[in-house]
C-alpha cells in the first residue's frame, strides 16, 4: 500500500519537475522574443532608405547612419582579414603539429584566457597599446587590431573542431599518394574543414559587430566617413550606445538598434545554416 503511494508520489513530483523545466526552457525563448519584438516594433517604422544612406546630422540626433555603417564595415573586414590567417594557422598547428606537452598546455591556456578577458579590458589595452604606445591614435586600424585579438580565440576554437573532424583516412590517402604533410593540409584538410572554419569567422564577425566597449576607446566615436584606416570611426554598436545613453533621439536610437539586430540575425542565420550543413554532411 505504502509502496504504491510512494510510486504515485514520485510520479507527481516528476510531472511537476518536468513542467517546471519546460517553463524555464520556454521562458528563454519568450525573453528572446520580447527583446527582439520590442526593438523591431519601436524601430522598424523609422527605417528607410534615407536613414541608411544619409549622413548623421546633429551628433546623430537627425539624419541617417551612413558613415556608421561604413565604419562598421571597415572594422569588420579589417579584423577578419587579420584574425582569419592567424587563427586558422594556429588551429592547424594545434591539431596537426603540436604534441602533448607544456607548450601545447600553455597555448591552450592562453587561448582560453584570451577568450575570458572582458571587452572593457580589451578597450583599455587597445587604448594604451595601439592608440598611445604605437601611436596609431583613435583609428579604424587601432580598433581592428584590438578586435583581432578578441575574436582570435573564437576562430581558433571553431577551426580546431572543424579540422579535428576531418577523417584521418583523407590525410592518409593524400600522404600515401606522395603528398607532403603541408600539401595535405593545404589541399585536403583545410578545404574539407572549410564550412567549420567559415562558421568560426562568421561568429567572429558577429562579435565585432556587437562589440562596443573595446571599440569606443580604440576606434573612437567620431562621426563622418573615415577616408583611411588611420582615421577614427564610429561603429553601429557604439553609435547605439551613445544615442541611448545620451537620450538623443528615440527614433534614431531604435532605428539603429533595428539595423544592428538585423545584422546579428543574418549573421546567426548564416552560421546556423553552415553548422547544419556540416552535420548533414557528416551523417552521410
Amino acid at each position, binding site marked *: 500500500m505504502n509502496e504504491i503511494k510512494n510510486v504515485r508520489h*514520485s*510520479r507527481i513530483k*516528476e510531472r511537476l*519537475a*518536468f513542467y517546471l*523545466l*519546460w517553463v*524555464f*526552457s520556454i*521562458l*528563454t*525563448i519568450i*525573453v*528572446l522574443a520580447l*527583446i527582439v519584438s*520590442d*526593438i523591431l516594433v519601436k524601430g522598424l517604422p523609422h527605417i528607410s532608405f534615407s536613414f541608411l544612406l544619409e549622413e548623421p546630422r546633429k551628433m546623430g540626433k537627425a539624419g541617417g547612419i551612413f558613415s556608421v555603417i561604413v565604419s562598421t564595415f571597415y572594422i569588420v573586414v579589417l579584423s577578419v582579414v587579420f584574425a582569419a*590567417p*592567424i*587563427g586558422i594557422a*594556429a*588551429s592547424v*598547428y*594545434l591539431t596537426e*603539429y603540436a604534441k602533448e606537452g607544456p607548450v601545447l598546455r*600553455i*597555448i591552450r591556456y*592562453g*587561448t*582560453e*584566457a*584570451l577568450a*575570458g*578577458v*572582458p*571587452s*572593457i*579590458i*580589451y578597450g*583599455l*589595452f587597445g587604448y*594604451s597599446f595601439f592608440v598611445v*604606445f604605437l601611436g596609431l591614435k583613435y583609428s579604424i586600424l587601432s580598433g581592428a587590431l584590438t578586435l583581432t585579438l578578441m575574436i*582570435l580565440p573564437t576562430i581558433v576554437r571553431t577551426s580546431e573542431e572543424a579540422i579535428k573532424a576531418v577523417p584521418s583516412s583523407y590525410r592518409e590517402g593524400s600522404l600515401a599518394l606522395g603528398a607532403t604533410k*603541408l600539401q595535405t593540409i593545404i589541399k585536403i584538410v583545410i578545404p574539407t574543414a572549410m564550412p567549420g572554419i567559415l562558421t568560426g569567422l562568421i561568429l567572429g564577425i558577429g562579435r565585432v559587430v*556587437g562589440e*562596443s*566597449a573595446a571599440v569606443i576607446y580604440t576606434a573612437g566615436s567620431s562621426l563622418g566617413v573615415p577616408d583611411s584606416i588611420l582615421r577614427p570611426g564610429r561603429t553601429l*554598436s557604439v553609435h*547605439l*550606445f551613445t544615442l*541611448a545613453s545620451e537620450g538623443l533621439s528615440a527614433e534614431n*536610437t531604435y532605428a539603429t*538598434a533595428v539595423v*544592428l*539586430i538585423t545584422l*546579428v*540575425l543574418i549573421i546567426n542565420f548564416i*552560421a*546556423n545554416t553552415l553548422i547544419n550543413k556540416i552535420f548533414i554532411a557528416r551523417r552521410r
Partner: protein
Amino acid sequence: MIFREKIVEKILLFCAGIAVLGVAIIGIFIFREGWPVISNTGIIGFVLGKDWAPTQGIYGIFPMILGSMYVTLGALMIGVPIGIGCAVYLAEIASQRLSTIIKPGIELLAGIPSVIYGLYGMTVIVPIIRDLFNNQGFSVLAGSIVLGIMILPTIINISKDSIEAVPKEYKEGSLALGSSHWQAIIKVVLPAARSGIISSIILGMGRAIGETMAVIMITGNSTLIPESILSPVRTLTGNIGIEMGYASGEHQKALFATGIVLFVFIMVLNLLAKLIPNKVGE
C-alpha cells in the same frame, strides 16, 4: 622541401603563440599603466577605500567591487536555475521539434550585442522596477535581471554538453533499478555532469563580471555603497567605461588600476574553471 616544411611549422607555432603573447601583453600594459596608482594609494587603501573622488585624487574602489559582486550574484541567482533547468530539459526531455526551436533561440540570445540588452533594460526593465518600487529604477535588481539573461546561453550550452556527455549506461542502470526518470536525472545524471555544470557557472560569472555597456546603461552608476538591491550601483567595469571617455593623467591611471583588479578577478575565475573539473571529475 623538408626545410621549407620546418619553416612553415615554426610560422604556425608562432601564430598559435599569439594568443599567449596577447594575454601577456594585455596584462603587462594594464599593470604598467595602473600600478603607480595602486602603489601610491596602497593595495588595501585602493581595494577597501570607500571613497572615489578623482578630482581630489582619492581612489577607493570598494563600492565598485561590492557593486560587481552584488550584480553578479544577482545574475547567478536568476541565470543558474533557469539555465540549468533549460539544459536538463533540452538534453533529457525535450522532443526533437521543441529543441529545434529552442536551440537556435539560445544561439541568438548569445549573439545579441550587449548594447541591445542595455537598451532593452533601460527602456523596459528599469521603468517596470521604477513603477513597482517607486524608486529611480536604475538598480542592482535591474542589472541582475539583464545580466541573468545575458549569461543564460553560456550556462545552458556548457551544462547541456556536459549532461549529454554522461554515458547512457549510467541513466539506464538507474532506470533498471526502478528509479523514475526524474530520480535518475537528479541522483545520477546531474552528479555525473557536475564538473561541466560548475564550470558553466564559473564562465557565466566571468561574463557577468566583465559586462560593461549594458551594465552602465541600467545600474545607475552611483559610487555609493549600495544599501539594497533597489539601490543604484556602479560596477568595476562601469567605473572604467563611464570615466574613460574624459579622464586624463592620474585619474586615467586609476581607471587602469580598476582594470587590474578586474583582470585579476577574471584570471582567478579562469584558473578555477580549469582546476575544478579535474578535482570533481575524479
